[in-house]
């Protein structure tokens, strides 16, 4: 009896000792490749545990625990400010512990603008990319978001029933939703109008997808001819089948950037800083970039990027990043307005 008790106690001590060497990250698929985890483990002795998620789930999970359970999260840059003001799930970075010169300065500036609260920085850039349109050039040809609603594409397109879709169709209607973020009345009116457009377009959507694989599946099986999609997925499809194109829509692709954010009650900040400094080394960042198929915010990693992806980038964006819209930080409460509109689209006949 006492031997068993002792054993249990020892096991508890052992588990605690192990805990100090574990870094828990909540992130997106492909952002933390196994190869990089192994290399980090060899170098530092720290184990990395990965939980896959998306923006909304990340915030909800951290909200439920008051920012505990994970040491590092990777929300999109526009999703930090509002979530922090509302739920206090993050803690600021000690910028002295990060090698800031490893980051692309322009991307760091965007984060500084969107994720600084009371002079403290709550995010660091990691991976960025764009969301635009894909289409199968054998079946159709499109150039802007509303083209997904063309009558001949009935039942053959797909979007996500989430805010990026609202933003895209708002931009395509000639208005700038980002300029109205702080004007609740005008923003609600614009969203209502976009909601009507999407409801009328619903016959064209075969489904609303929740993850990349669902859409890739639909396109590969030939059920989907055109869709809103991230660049990495679009380029992956294009590499497998050159008929499928990823394009920058006339109204402009929307650029997102996923970040590092320290959780409010994370237990292993030291490991989190070590990890950030590790993965932002150009050669490691290039490995991550190959795993995701997107560009990272590490300075000098672009030169090590897969030349095929660089060529695809040049083909999609011949004018560089001129016609790309970056998301500004979402103020608290904005998502309630959008939520009501998305519910109505879902319920439309």
């Amino acid at each position, binding site marked *: 009896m006492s031997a068993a008790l002792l054993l249990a106690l020892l096991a508890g001590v052992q588990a605690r000792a192990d805990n100090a060497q574990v870094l828990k990250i909540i992130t997106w698929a492909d952002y933390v490749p196994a190869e990089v985890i192994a290399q980090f483990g060899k170098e530092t002795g720290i184990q990395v545990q990965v939980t896959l998620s998306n923006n909304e789930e990340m915030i*909800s999970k951290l909200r439920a625990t008051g920012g505990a359970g994970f040491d590092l999260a990777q929300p999109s840059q526009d999703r930090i400010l509002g979530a922090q003001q509302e739920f206090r799930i993050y803690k600021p970075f000690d910028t002295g512990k990060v090698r800031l010169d490893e980051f692309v300065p322009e991307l760091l500036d965007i984060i500084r603008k969107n994720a600084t609260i009371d002079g403290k920085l709550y995010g660091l850039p990691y991976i960025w990319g764009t969301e635009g349109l894909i289409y199968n050039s054998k079946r159709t040809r499109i150039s802007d978001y509303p083209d997904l609603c063309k009558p001949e594409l009935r039942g053959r397109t797909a979007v996500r029933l989430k805010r990026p879709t609202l933003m895209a169709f708002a931009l395509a209607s000639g208005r700038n939703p980002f300029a109205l973020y702080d004007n609740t009345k005008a923003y609600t009116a614009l969203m209502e109008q976009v909601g009507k457009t999407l409801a009328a377009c619903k016959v064209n959507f075969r489904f*609303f997808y929740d993850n990349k694989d669902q859409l890739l599946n639909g396109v590969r*099986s030939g*059920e989907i001819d055109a869709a809103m999609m991230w660049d990495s997925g679009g380029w992956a499809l294009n590499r497998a089948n050159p008929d499928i194109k990823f394009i920058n829509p006339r109204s402009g692709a929307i650029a997102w950037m996923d970040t590092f954010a320290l959780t409010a009650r994370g237990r292993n900040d030291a490991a989190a800083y070590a990890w950030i400094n590790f993965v932002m080394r150009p050669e490691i960042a290039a490995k991550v970039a190959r795993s995701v198929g997107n560009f990272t915010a590490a300075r000098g990693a672009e030169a090590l990027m897969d030349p095929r992806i660089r060529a695809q980038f040049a083909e999609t964006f011949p004018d560089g990043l001129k016609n790309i819209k970056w998301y500004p930080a979402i103020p*608290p409460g904005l998502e309630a307005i959008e*939520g009501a509109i998305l519910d109505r689209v879902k319920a439309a006949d």
Partner: protein
Amino acid sequence: MPEAPAAAPWYRRLMLGLLLAPALLWLFALIVLPHVDLALLSFRERVAPRQYVASLAQYRTFFGEPLYWRVFVRTAVLSALATALTLLVAFPIAWTIAKLARGRMSALLFVVCLIPFWVSETVRTLGWMILLRESGVLPALLVHLGLTTQPVELLYHDATILVGLVYTSLLFMVVPLVGNLESLDNALIEAAYDLGGKGWSILREIVIPHAAPGITAGCIVVFMLTLGNYLTPTLLGGKNSLWFTEQIYTQFITRFNWEQGAAFGFLLLALSTAMVWLGLKVSGQRFSDVMRRA
């Protein structure tokens, strides 16, 4: 010793309390407490970041926005329909297992009903998706047989949701029905035939009244499972699923609106309670009898 008789009941009461403690703790910590917390959540409203006031706004939103009403009623109606269909499908199966098949055959049939439950609901539902999607097995078969010229999309319809729900809940109807039908004495049916009864009248006058507690128990279980199902309607219904549990998930996870989600949760709880009460009243059964038979 004068204390002895008094000590025994005290001791026994303590034993009873200790034996019940795990169940009571479970009930209290995992069911009562979270519900109290949710109830409190549902009666407040966010007025500014991190500021909440007591209010009925969440319930007002539900009654004021026809959209939520529609989904609520739709979920109730489709769940009732799925329950009725499950009963129709399960009754002949249960009858075969309980009355027609003998020995090993009856055990085998039971296992056949059970086998799909060896894999998780997700896998079963994905299986249906592989069968029914436009590039899937069944549409290809229909084209091959010449019944359709083009592959048709069989997913994302209400009928698809019903198929999935009936499939998922079949076992929960078959089990109580088999139990009830097995206890029905064959001599009663033979006597009914001797007295000139026909198949239909025997079913109505003898079999159904005997199996009524089993039918009610099965219906209650299936209805509750269906009403609270999230996966099947969402995956098979796609863009048109409109299931109330999905609304609750959306409010909690993607809208960060726990208050609205909690209110929706309580409305669903009220709905299932009301429907079960109504079912018992209509069928003239008593809850305690039904639960004993289930």
